[in-house]
Each structure stands twice: as C-alpha cells, then as structure tokens.
C-alpha cells in the first residue's frame, strides 16, 4: 500500500521525509497516550495495572520474535525458552551475586542473545520447517538444563525466588510501581525495533525473508544476518524474561513452556507479521482474550461440570480459535486492517481501493 499523504503536504528536507511522527497533533497524541499509560496507577485498578504489565512484557518478547520471524522469515518456536534464560540469568546476577538490577538487565539480555546465537547455528544448514524443529529443541533442552544442572545454584525443579528490583533506591515491589519499569523498557524496545526495521540491517532481513537466493546475490551475508536476527530476538526475549521474572518474583523451569512459545508466535500473526504495530496489537488482543477466559471461566464450568477450572480450558480454546480465524480470513493481521482503516479515513468520502 502506497504511503498516502494529505494533499498539499510536501517534504522539504530528508529529515522530514524520514520522520515517523509527522504532525504536531501526532506528537501531542503520542505524548498524551504515553502520559496516560504512565499515570495509569492514579485512575485504574491494580488488576488493570497488572494486566498492562503483562501486556508490556509480552509486547517486548513479540517484538524480538518479529525481527526474527516477521522480518527475517526464520520461524522460531523457542522464544519462551530464551525468556526463561533471561529470567534465570537475572535472578542469578541479582539474587546470588548481589548485582544491581540496572547492571543485571543488560548483561542478562546480552548473555541470552549469546545463547540464542547457539540455537541459531542450525540456520546455517537448514531452513523452514527444519529450523522450527531446531528451535523446538531449544524449548526442551534449555528448561531441562535449568531443572537439572547445578541444583544448588539453580534450585532444581523448585527454581529461584527473585527479589523485586531496586533502581536508584526505589524498590519496585508492587504492580503500580513495576509499571514504570515495564513502560520504560517498552518505549526503548519499541524505538529500537522500529528503527532497526527501517535501517540497513532491517532491509537486509527483509531481503532474506523475501528471497534468500536473490539477497545473497545482492551481497547480503545470509549466515551473518540470520545469526544477527537470532541474537536480537533472543536479546528482546531476554529483556522480557528479566522483567517477567522480577514481576512474578519467582522462576522455575515450567514458567515458560512450549505453549508460551506458541502463544508468542500467535500474537505475532494476529497482530501482523513484519509490521511494527503488529506485536503491540497482537499482544494486547491475546492478553485480553486471556482476561476474557478468566471472566467467562465460571460460566463455562457451569455448563460443562467435568471441565477443569474454566480459564485453563478457555485460554487455549479462545487463543486457538482466534489464531485459526485470523490465518484463514486475515493472514496479514490487525496491522494490515489498521492500514486499510487509515487509508479509508484519508480518502473519505471516496472508497479506498
């Protein structure tokens, strides 16, 4: 879809041509939205704040997956395993070694990236479906490692109790405070993901996705860029995992399982593959579906007496049905719908093509 601009609006400089936020009112809307999110604890209930926390963490993980699967086209079923790695690393650095959270977050994220590189190595040999299998192997081998290796340090099957993070003397020990950490990380990761996707690196990723042979002929180093995509995806997963572990205050080898990896991929598809808004839309919709499952759970338990606690049954059911409907009717996700809506709005009263 071509970029539609209102009549009479011309770019007079390259900076303006590149700009993402173009109009004063867009700046106002953006800052108003961010301010509304930051002020959420003032006017929203604590359960809403906790929900926004979960959504923010999911968005970061899905943004990483978007770089790998959406832009580079390498399907990964191991994103949740990398979240777990990040969570464990931060728990060790903060809990056992007494590092400050500010130092532990980037170190844990970068180390997770290094682990991601190892499981990205098969992308040298295989692609497509076989690569899914290799990343699925990560989803089994990493939790096994955390469950069985060094039980005196990693806590075996019980896992580790994680301390609430302390930044600049402030202890982020309740959802209303934790929100500020999540939102700040989310803003940084969104800026990073957005600018990566339109940089030289992002264009190289897209060229690999669209035609790897042509990309290689154009001088894109396939192996290097695939590994970079794996590294970045794992770094984002690491950040999300660190935030999640400190939010839940506990991590063990069952916190992130293969179902979570499937959910992250599903969020990406529901939101829109390869689009920057996709992870945000997708994570919001899927987390809201989980909320709906919690809401309707008791109702369904009334109808099906043998059902085990409504939410465990409804969460996968709602998610699966939504994912399948999107795959059949709108494989390009909500981000594409949003584009159509914007185009229709700009061309009003004429119908868009």
């Amino acid at each position: 879809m071509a970029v539609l601009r209102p009549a009479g609006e011309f770019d007079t400089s390259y900076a303006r041509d590149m700009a993402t936020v173009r109009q004063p009112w867009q700046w106002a809307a953006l800052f108003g939205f961010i301010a509304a999110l930051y002020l959420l604890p003032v006017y929203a209930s604590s359960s809403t704040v906790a929900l926004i926390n979960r959504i923010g963490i999911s968005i970061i993980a899905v943004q990483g997956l978007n770089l790998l699967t959406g832009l580079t086209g390498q399907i990964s079923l191991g994103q949740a395993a990398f979240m777990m790695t990040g969570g464990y690393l931060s728990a060790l650095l903060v809990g056992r070694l007494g590092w400050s959270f500010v130092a532990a977050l980037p170190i844990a994220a970068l180390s997770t990236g290094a682990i991601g590189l190892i499981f990205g190595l098969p992308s040298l040999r295989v692609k497509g479906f076989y690569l899914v299998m290799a990343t699925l192997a990560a989803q089994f081998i990493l939790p096994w490692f955390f469950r069985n290796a060094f039980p005196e340090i990693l806590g075996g099957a019980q896992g580790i109790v994680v301390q609430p993070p302390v930044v600049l003397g402030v202890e982020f020990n309740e959802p209303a405070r934790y929100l500020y950490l999540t939102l700040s990380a989310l803003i940084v990761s969104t800026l990073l993901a957005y600018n990566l996707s339109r940089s030289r690196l992002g264009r190289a990723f897209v060229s690999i996705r669209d035609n790897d042979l042509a990309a290689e002929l154009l001088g894109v180093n396939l192996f290097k860029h695939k590994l970079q995509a794996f590294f970045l995806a794992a770094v984002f997963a690491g950040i999300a995992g660190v935030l999640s572990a400190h939010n839940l205050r506990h991590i063990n080898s069952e916190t992130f399982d293969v179902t979570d990896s499937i959910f992250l991929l599903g969020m990406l598809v529901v939101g829109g593959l390869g689009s920057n808004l996709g992870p945000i839309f997708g994570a919001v919709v899927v987390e809201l579906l989980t909320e709906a499952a919690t809401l309707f759970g008791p109702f369904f338990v009334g109808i099906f007496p043998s059902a085990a606690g409504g939410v465990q049954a409804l969460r996968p059911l709602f998610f699966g049905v939504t994912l399948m409907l999107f795959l059949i009717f709108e494989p390009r996700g909500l981000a594409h719908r949003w584009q159509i809506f914007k185009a229709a709005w700009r061309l009003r009263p004429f119908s868009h093509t």
Partner: protein
Amino acid sequence: MNWQLLPQFAASGLLAGGPIALVALGIVLVFKSSYIFNFAHGHMLLMGALITWWLAVEVGLPLWLSIVLALALSALLGWLVERLALRPMTGQPLLSIILMTLGLSQVLQGLALLLFGGAQRNFPQIFSAADPYKIVTPFTVDDRPIVIILKQNLVWSFVAAMLGVIVISAFFRFTRTGLAMRGASEDHELAQSIGLRIHRIFGVSWALAGTVAATAGILLATSSGLDLSLAVVVLAAFPAVLLGGLESIPGAIAGGLIIGLSQGVVAAAKAQWVRDTTEIVPYVALLIVLLIRPEGLFGQKRIERI
C-alpha cells in the same frame, strides 16, 4: 554404563519405541500426502484416548465397542480438521500452515479440558499388567545371568503398534486408494491431471492419521495412564519422524524404535547426570540429525540452497 541392567533397559526402551513409531507413522502419513507437518497430532491422539475412556468408563460400553467407536470418531475428527482448517490453507506460506496446526493443537487442548477435565484417569487395562515375561539370557555379568523382565502390557502394546504399522504399509502397498495416495504424494498437480481427486485423498489421509493417532493414544494410555500430558509425551515422536525421514514409512518405524532404544540405553547409565538426560535424548538426537543429515535416514534428499 551399568552392564547388568543395560539389556533390560534397552529391551524396555525398544518396546516403548513401538507406540512412538506408530505416532511417527501418523505424522508421516499426513506429510506424505499433503506436505503438512501436523503439530496437532499429539492432541488428536489425546482426543482419541479420552473418547475411548469416556465411552468405556463414563458411558459404560464394552471396551471393544468403545475402541471401535473411538477410532471411527477420530477418523471423523481428522477429516473435519482437514476440511475446516487446512483446506483454506492450500497454497499459503509455510508459516501459516505451521501456525494453523499449532492453533489447532491449542483448540483441541482447550476442548479436551472443557469436555473431559484435566484429572489423571485410570484407563481400562486392555492387556494384563500381571505376570511379566521373564527371559533368562545365556550371558552373564559378574557371574550373574542377565535376566530381562518384560511387562506384558508393554509387550502387547508393542505388538499391537507393529500390527498397526503392518496394516498401514499393506494398505499403501496393495489397495487402489493406497496407490492413489502414493501417486498423489509424488506431485499434486500431476496427480490431478491423471484424474486423482486430490482433496478426497487429503481427506482420506487425515482420517487415516486420526485413526492411527487414536490407536497410538489408546496404546500409550493403557500402558502409562491417561492425562493431558499424553499430548506432550508425543513430542518425542517429532525427532523420530525427522530421524527416519519425513516422507518415509519405514523411516518412521526405524526412527521410533531408535529413539526408544537410545532413551533406554541412556537410562541404563551409571552416572546420575547421564540418566537425567533421558528426557532430552530425542531432541539432542534431532539436533545431530539436523546438522549431519537433515533429510533423515530414509528421506528424499532435496537439493536446496540455504
């Protein structure tokens, strides 16, 4: 390595490989005809076992009748899945198809929980668990003879799984439909041009896969109990499929048996940390296969530039 116990564990592992081979066969069946790797196979298997349990225990039908009914219902489920979920995906990119089967697995997981609940259940014993077979081998370690004790239900599950494999192979080898399915697996367009109804073939292969899945589910449930983790146990079959080669029926069987055997051998190790690796043996094997021989033992080698 604990040489006294090795034959015992290897034999048990090999027997456990039988049902894994049957699961792998179900996945290969679908892949051969429609090039779809069915990640929801584990949950189709779970549904088959749960329906059998429901008919036999809750409704109170005789066991043989509930097994027959469950196999029929699973075939219907497989056919419905193809018709409703995967037919619209024809010609879509790989990611969409993979995600469709993953979404399907979540739907089936939710349905299983909603309709049957998540409790651990006693599955009716099809094969007696008493009187294990005792084989005294002529070999000795430290002057003690090596004795292999095989549980009856494991042995008969293995035999039943192998029977299933033989029936399916014979179906492919000797029937017209089997021939048509083999033809369709070569090239979809070519098959259509000589008058094969490709959609009917997809439907038949999914229905068949549903039946095979339910058979494997019943065998696994009768030997190791029935709960929702059954669908996850099946994940050990994915490496078996890749090990054998995605399109190969003998490969699926060999892959299943090799995975079972290697798990058994690792479980016989003396060192605790080696024994702990039993659960990830299939996935380590998978990584090795992917790095050394991605097409598997019996698969077709595709020349594909990476």
